[in-house]
């Protein structure tokens, strides 16, 4: 990854910790992720940032999915932190237990992270996640959102965007891929639980991602950070394009960056110059059918509307600023 990805050419406060020589490399090289995996990048940046902010005292609970499978195949292990994988749908509950045990041992300084993919988080783990929020357990939950069940071959999840092609939402005839009226917005569901901290982040803005994770890890109670992590294999783009794709999602408004505390949105990251969704969509094979012979202008319009709504709702163009 080039140093510009990490923000090295920007002002001092925007330099990513990930570009520093003393980054701890909590998810070390040699794992089995695809080239250009946004999830591997997001996890390394997030866990490194948490590690630094918690003085190296973190433990990680990982749900089943690409991240778990590519980082930990016996007898190899890419993690430099205590790490446990239990199941696909119980990660928040396992983390609750880990946090309770640390509390019982007088080790509240050891901070607990639960992490999983969007399928693990927004579908099968939703009950356990909501329970963890409801009890305000002292856990930071990080969702790496690559918008489908990648580990099992790109099946739709409730985080798959409108009209996207997945293995289970193949566009056929007038059916244009994932139903536009489906899906759920888990960051908003987290906000509705009025937990102390909720944020969205993206591998397209790593200094922002690091700042949010570092802030979240030391807050008492339940925290939720939802990270947009493009997947070259599932979305269909060259492996060198991961960060650019993530940035296009930010710039068009389809993935809004915001923070919320105790049920209220307290800030968002404005977009310098908003672009249309088409630039983002055209760059990915999962949306190619929207530009093919069955294409209708309405289809792009549906996605543009979603972006516009985000821009308005989170005041992404010249509204509430970051701080």
């Amino acid at each position, binding site marked *: 990854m080039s140093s510009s990805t990490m923000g090295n050419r920007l002002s001092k406060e925007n330099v990513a910790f990930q570009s520093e020589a003393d980054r701890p490399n909590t998810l070390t090289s040699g794992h089995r992720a695809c080239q250009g995996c946004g999830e591997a990048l997001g996890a390394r940046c997030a866990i490194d940032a948490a590690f630094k902010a918690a003085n190296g005292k973190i433990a990680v609970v990982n749900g089943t999915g690409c991240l778990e499978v590519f980082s930990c195949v016996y007898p190899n292990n890419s993690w430099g932190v205590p790490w446990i994988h239990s199941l696909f749908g119980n990660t928040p509950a396992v983390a609750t*237990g880990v946090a309770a*045990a640390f509390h019982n041992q007088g080790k509240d300084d050891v901070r607990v992270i639960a992490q999983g993919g969007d399928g693990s988080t927004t579908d099968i783990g939703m009950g356990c996640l909501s329970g963890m929020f409801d009890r305000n357990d002292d856990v930071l939950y990080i969702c790496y959102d690559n918008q489908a069940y990648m580990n099992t071959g790109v099946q739709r999840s409730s985080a798959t965007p409108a009209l996207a092609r997945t293995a289970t939402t193949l566009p056929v005839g007038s059916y244009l891929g994932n139903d536009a009226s489906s899906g759920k917005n888990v960051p908003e569901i987290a906000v509705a639980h009025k937990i102390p901290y909720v944020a969205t982040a993206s591998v397209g803005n790593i200094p922002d991602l690091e700042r949010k994770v570092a802030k979240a890890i030391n807050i008492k109670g339940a925290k939720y950070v939802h990270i947009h992590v493009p997947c070259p294999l599932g979305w269909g783009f060259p492996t060198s394009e991961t960060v650019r794709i993530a940035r296009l999602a930010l710039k068009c408004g389809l993935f809004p960056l915001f923070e919320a505390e105790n049920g209220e949105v307290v800030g968002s990251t404005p977009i310098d110059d908003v672009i249309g969704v088409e630039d983002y969509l055209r760059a990915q094979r999962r949306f190619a059918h929207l530009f093919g012979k069955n294409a209708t202008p309405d289809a792009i319009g549906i996605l543009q509307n979603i972006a516009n709504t985000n821009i308005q709702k989170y005041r992404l163009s010249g509204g509430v600023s970051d701080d």
Partner: protein
Amino acid sequence: MGALSVAIGSEAAGVRSYTATSSQGLLYMAEAVYNASGLNLPIVMTLGNRAIGAPINIWNDHTDAMSVRDAGWLMLFAETNQEAVDLHIQAFKIAEATKSPVMVCVDGFILTHAYERVDIPSQEEVDDYLPPYEPEISLDTKHPQAIGTMVPPEYFTEVRYLAHKRQIDSLGVIECAGKGFKEKFGRESGGLIHKYNTENADTIIVTMGSVAGTIKDVIDELNEKGGKYGVLSIVSYRPFPNEAVKEALRSAKNIIVVEKAFAVGIGGILSQEIELLMKDSNCEIKSVIAGLGGRAITKPMLTEYFLNNAKERTTFLGLKEDIIREEYKPLNCGKCK
């Protein structure tokens, strides 16, 4: 699912952990049941044994326990409320010595909701019997390790084989925990099996859990009238104490297995295990499925069965034949004769 998962997390972080479940809750957490044993986490869980729906039914039988009998947990069945108390204390000792989770099975309602005078040992006595828990591996920032990694075909068989060996080795640990308990608390509780008048019996009734009490009452009456009956109740259902059971059944000419669950389409589950174990003996083995979904197992029902020398291999005790006659229509694809 959530409850056992929390215990998985806390046990993995090095703290002695306990939870309880029953019936549908056990099935809901089935994935986590296998996970806890696969991760060698010495969790103790009470199972208040109840039926599984549909049809929904909240009452006692052993279908829930039987559904996870191959999940790698150690499974102990309590006969009385006192034994339920005692087995929980022993369970932590056994779990931590074997690095296996232990399920203490306690008959739903019959034991879980019954008032009975029990002796609850003091904290000091229990602490003396059960030393502080020192996990071998835990989530420790000083020694970061990965727990629960993916294991490929190159190693999977070995992991499973070791689980098998460990489960069999646990027999000795369970026996020893029972002996240690008796030394400390002066009570006979736990162990692998309970024998009642098995030495000279012609007919031995094999069972598990609280119904052993009713059966003992019945055979006491029969033995007073010259009968030669004994009762063998299995405390350690997993691991299954093959040798101890065989030894206890040595004198039997007839074996009657009374159990509160069955494998649909096959028949009694414990019965099959006993049949397999006794395949080289000449004794007659009969299977009695009783107490399903809380149907009372009464002394007259048992007495009648024991005295009547049933011909059938399997009997559903107290089956209402009139309902069956009305509802049962033999299946036929329509083409076969």
